[in-house]
């Protein structure tokens, strides 16, 4: 949730070749450079994935206190038989490396333990929560990226003028918003007072959820040709997306402004002007294309901040996603539940960064074609 200064200073996992190798330097030719690049990125991702499991494993096992009690809850932990069975199942009487391998084996089989709060396997709980959260996150990213691109580009073009100052203050204020508070206040105002948005949850109680295809209600309703359901699902998304967008727009705008400024100062934009292209043409074809790579990097980072945001915001809207689940788990000290969320979000984040790398390769011919 830090303000990214430049892509050099705060960067999501893995170093992308974002230094933008100057096109002038010739590089040695390799066979299918994109594939090689992706394989390297994939390797890094897998290593980090393992790292993520090591972190969660270490946290569950090395922290002060009794991990068995933490995993089973105080009630069950007072029963010696349950404890013995648990210890045996997870190999807790074995040395740590063996324990880790057991842990990893269980993870691979999708066993994240049993939630103390819901009593169900964590995996089952998360399976329904993940799409709910992704629906908010994806929509928020799309909305914020559009808004921030317009704001950031306008600010860059109007550099130093009033518009630029206003955009700067707006984005700084957006970054300073405690999202969980904004969620509460806007829920109070727009739902309880004005009644302009529907209340909590993903859907009005009288409607039945669409048949699951993607798990994203809006998409599933559309696939099912159900207009009423789609509108209702979208209406429920409005407020959470609005709240999270304010923060994300703040994060993205400053960065996009800087990237666009950099591109505006480049020779190729001046050359495009010298060619007599129309200003609109130059913005879309030259400027935004040139800024797309750094923007992509920051979108990856923003997505991480967004996942953090959903954890704090969802519970206010009783949105049945990872955030509400994490909130309840944290409130009940449901350690398996919390670890499950941590692990899953870590995986999602890594997956997303891999996608960002992939897009990076596709957008930059210097990576794609070497």
């Amino acid at each position, binding site marked *: *949730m830090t*303000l990214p*200064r*430049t892509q050099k*200073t*705060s*960067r*999501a*996992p893995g170093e992308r070749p974002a230094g933008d190798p100057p096109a002038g330097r010739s590089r040695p030719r390799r066979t299918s450079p994109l594939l090689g690049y992706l394989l390297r990125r994939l390797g890094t991702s897998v290593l*980090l994935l393992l*790292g*993520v499991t090591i*972190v969660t494993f270490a*946290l569950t096992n090395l*922290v*002060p*206190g009794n991990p068995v009690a933490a995993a089973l809850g105080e009630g069950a932990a007072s029963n010696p038989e349950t404890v013995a069975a648990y210890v045996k199942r997870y190999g807790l009487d074995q040395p740590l490396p063996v324990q880790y391998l057991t842990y990893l084996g269980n993870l691979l089989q999708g066993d994240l333990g049993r939630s103390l709060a819901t009593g169900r396997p964590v995996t089952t709980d998360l399976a329904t929560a993940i799409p709910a959260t992704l629906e908010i996150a994806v929509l928020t990213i799309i909305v914020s990226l559009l808004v921030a691109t317009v704001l950031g580009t306008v600010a860059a073009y109007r550099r*130093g*003028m*009033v518009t*630029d*100052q206003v955009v*700067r203050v707006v984005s*700084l204020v957006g*970054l*300073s*918003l*405690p999202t*969980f*508070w904004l969620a*509460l*206040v806007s829920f*109070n105002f727009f739902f*309880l007072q004005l009644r302009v948005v529907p209340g909590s949850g993903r859907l009005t109680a009288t409607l039945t959820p669409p048949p699951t295809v993607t798990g994203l209600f809006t998409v599933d309703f559309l696939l099912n040709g159900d207009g009423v359901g789609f509108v209702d699902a979208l209406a429920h998304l409005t407020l959470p997306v609005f709240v999270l967008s304010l923060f994300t727009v703040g994060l993205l705008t*400053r960065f996009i402004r*800087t990237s666009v*400024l*950099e591109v*505006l100062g480049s*020779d190729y934009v*001046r050359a495009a002007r010298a060619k007599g292209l129309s200003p609109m043409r130059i913005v879309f074809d030259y400027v935004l294309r040139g800024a797309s790579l750094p923007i992509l990097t920051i979108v990856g980072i923003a997505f*991480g*901040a967004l996942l*953090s945001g959903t*954890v*704090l915001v969802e*519970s*206010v809207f009783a949105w049945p996603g990872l955030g509400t689940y*994490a*909130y309840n*788990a*944290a409130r009940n*000290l449901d*350690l398996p539940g*919390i670890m499950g*969320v*941590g692990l899953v*979000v*870590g995986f999602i*984040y890594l997956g997303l960064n891999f996608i960002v790398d992939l897009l990076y390769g596709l957008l930059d011919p210097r990576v794609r074609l070497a």
Partner: protein
Amino acid sequence: MTATAARPSNSRGPRVRAPRGGRLRLPAVWRTPLAIVGAVIALAWVVVAFTAPLWVPYPPDAQMLPRLLPPGTDGAILGTDALGRDLFSRLMSGAGVTIPLSLMLVAASVVIGTVIGASAGYFGKWVDEVLMRITDLFMAFPTVILAMVVAASLGPSLFNAVIAAIVVSWPQYARVTRSLVLGLRGQNYVIAGRLLGHSPLRSLLADIAPNITGPVVVLAALDIGSAILLLSGLSFLGLGAQPPTAEWGSMISSALQNFDAWWIGLFPGLAILTVVMAFNFIGDSLRDALDPSSRTERAASGVVAAPKTEDEALKGTGASA
């Protein structure tokens, strides 16, 4: 650049200038409206944080008023909560919890991060490899998520929340410091120092440290806001301050149980917003002063500099000045 020369700001950041016109002038950074607003608000909150116990009308934990009083009634300026505690007193006392802890945790993160980053950058090779892979690991999670997991494992308490926040905050300093040190290590004056027989420590402290302070200070200034958001967020999740501590995040959380009493949640959030905003204003102004590429020309100062697009044109004209 012509424009730079004409502008009073100094790209090396804060520095007290010589008195001019008989008055001591503040460094350029602190003369921008944004920085002034930020500094005033931040200063006010810091004063509140340290003096609140002396002047708040009620002890923050005292349940001595009617419950759920709306603001302005019976001498409770901001009303009372579900336990009949004076919200104004709790709000002001809350500053004393969040602000000092956030400042401390940022300071700790800076120390840990810069030491690790500097070691990695300076010694290179396997030291670098090991330290940076560890750093990568911590950056593989979104911050709040990792902090949540760590805080939950350690057990819910304000102290543990601070530890968790440090755990997620230091890696960015390590990254930045490492890349700066890597850049500086090859500079001639550093090499010259080493040839003169300076020890690695002396080389780091005397030759390299002065040049990484600027960027690290900017990062830290911007990070204070994040730290406050993180800490209050963890308390909102119930993993930070425990009842009855008056803490902004947990106060907002308690408002979830009383949706009708809008005032319970509104004011603590405004408190967080204003403090974080103040530090972000300061941080952003510092960054502006330090990093010419993100500098925003102050329209108010009357110096309208050329857009960056034309820097090239100006560059060609600057040399003959």
